[in-house]
């Protein structure tokens, strides 16, 4: 299908883009990789008056390490993340997640920032960013502010970003080298989106005691979330298979599982438990092999 007509600008600076966004309020949409936005435009689920293309603004793309934090520009493509040597060494969870997003074409064009702000409840990135306790830099007319990922996702296709703000950076703490991580998902056969996806990052101390852990879950409910109940049962404890299994079963606690064409609420809840358990086991295995 053909989108409704719209105007298009490609500002050269972030200030210009912020200005244009402020001037057009809710009538404008930001264009990054376009892999979420264009299908919506074509189906006319959205009909913005103006598209603001961010691709000409320098500095919005790239992966760097600063003060034990990984900083990723919002316009960095999934493939750039998948193939980053720095991330493979310092934050492999991001590479693992990028690897299972869409297909090669999507990974070459789609961006991490675009996906996060789109906030599809079945998207892969939110699980990893939540597990890693990521922070998001939002740039608006009043300057920049940082928001924890946990505060960012509010509901399906809904985030805490203001209509006049642009997500410009994602920051992830990576102080430890003794970590293990994994992202596993049950992919929906047609789209590849996560029916359920679970990301785990954990740090093991002496005698396999879990010093720190983050568990991010996508696909299960209307918004991705951090499985705090699971985390708190595991943190400080020795990660025996029995404890992992029992804790994983609690991933559904307090959640209201989605029901759609591809999985009933009951099946989704069950899958969340299975995948949480498997992802935890995989992360433990990888942490052990890093020591």
């Amino acid at each position, binding site marked *: 299908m053909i989108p409704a007509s719209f105007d298009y600008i490609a500002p050269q600076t972030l200030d210009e883009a912020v200005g244009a966004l402020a001037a057009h309020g809710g009538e404008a949409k930001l264009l990054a990789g376009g892999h979420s936005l264009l299908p919506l435009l074509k189906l006319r689920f959205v009909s913005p008056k103006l598209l603001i293309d961010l691709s000409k603004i320098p500095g919005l793309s790239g992966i760097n390490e600063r003060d034990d934090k990984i900083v990723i520009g919002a316009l960095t493509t999934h493939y750039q993340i998948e193939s980053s040597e720095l991330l493979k060494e310092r934050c492999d969870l991001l590479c693992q997640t990028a690897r299972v997003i869409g297909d090669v074409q999507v990974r070459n064009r789609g961006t991490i920032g675009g996906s996060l702000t789109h906030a599809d409840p079945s998207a892969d990135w939110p699980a990893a960013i939540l597990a890693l306790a990521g922070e998001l830099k939002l740039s608006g007319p009043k300057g920049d502010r940082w928001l924890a990922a946990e505060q960012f996702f509010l509901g399906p296709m809904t985030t805490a970003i203001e209509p006049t703000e642009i997500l410009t950076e994602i920051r992830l703490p990576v102080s430890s080298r003794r970590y293990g991580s994994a992202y596993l998902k*049950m992919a*929906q*056969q*047609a*789209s590849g989106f996560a029916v359920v996806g679970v990301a785990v990052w954990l740090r093991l101390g002496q005698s396999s005691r879990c010093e720190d852990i983050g568990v991010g879950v996508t696909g299960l409910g209307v918004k991705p979330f951090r499985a705090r109940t699971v985390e708190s049962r595991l943190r400080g404890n020795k990660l025996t298979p029995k404890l992992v299994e029992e804790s994983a079963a609690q991933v559904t606690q307090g959640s209201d599982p989605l029901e759609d*064409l*591809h*999985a*009933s609420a009951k*099946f989704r809840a*069950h*899958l969340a438990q*299975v995948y949480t358990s498997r992802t935890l086991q995989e992360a433990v295995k990888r942490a052990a092999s890093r020591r």
Partner: protein
Amino acid sequence: VKVRQKNFPKPTEFPFKTATGVAYDSGNYQLALNKALKLAGYEKLRRDQKRLRSQGRYLGIGLSTYVEICAMGPKGMWEYGKVEVEPSGKVTVLSGASPHGQGQETSFAQIVADELGVELDAITVVHGDTAAVPKGIGTFGSRATAVGGIAVYQAAGKVKEKARELASHLLEVDADDLNFSEGRFNVKGVPKKGLTIQQIAQQVHTTKNLPKEMDPRLSAESTFEPSNFTFPFGTHICVVEVEPQTGTVEIEKYVAVDDCGKVINPLLVDGQIQGGIVQGLGQALFEEVIYDENGQLLTGSLMDYALPRAADLPRLNLTRTETPTPVNPLGIKGIGEAGTIGSTPAVVNAVVDALAPFGVTHIDMPLTPQKIWSLSEGKKAAGSGARR
């Protein structure tokens, strides 16, 4: 396997008249089954299955033997073909069987190249254009080669006979004194004296002393209407591992033995089989059109309507037996739909077989993860300590 073996008609029983009055043209079903069992390593697979079940893993072996009805067919379902050797030596073939990707541009050219002894590159197959092809019925029911190919073959045969007459005039010998081999009419006993069909087409075009009753155009058309359908057959074996906990199906192995009679182009036949198997597998595992209670289509795009992808498949292990049909002069039976016919039941049978320890004997297609999971959920597998 035993039920099939007991009920197969023997090769000597063909043409095999069925209870419905249809006569199967030719077949050797046992041979195809045996070949497939051997190729798949059936006995070992059953041993593996037993061993894995005791570990809580669920291997399934699915078998399907099929007989297909092809080459539509007798009673008015003819097909049209025309072959013309132009003075330039180029050969144009017209066919009313209009392929849409099956590759008959190549296989029809092969039939004509073999019959006339002309290089494949000199032949152009024209189809699908009513401005060029005067009539035809079309491609369906796996008939394009087995019916349309025969029409082209017959037209080429007529062209060859015409060429013999013209050669006899040009070489000034009796037509009966000409041998045809490797694309050339040779004068018996004078091997150096002869003309290729293309040379004949060229010389007739410029010769001045052609008798009036002799038509200089090396062109002929033909229609072919078979006396019976053809009945290709085969055995497909699919091996899957099912994970009851998530309902996912992994295809571990796929073996297909198909018999479509004489094969013109093995690569094209394999292509048809491969595409068919994957399509049938899609039907078995993924494809479903779903509407909601208001009649709204929910599977309206490929984001929701699932199809198999290359990554979902193992290498398909394909082979053939060859039992020519007596129904047409080339012995061709047709292969267009065989893959889908063999694969859908083979895949479903494999999954049902994998879930046999849970008492599963039937699952409606498509075999989605949720369906598979719900069938084994809460049940204890027979012969395994694992509870799901």
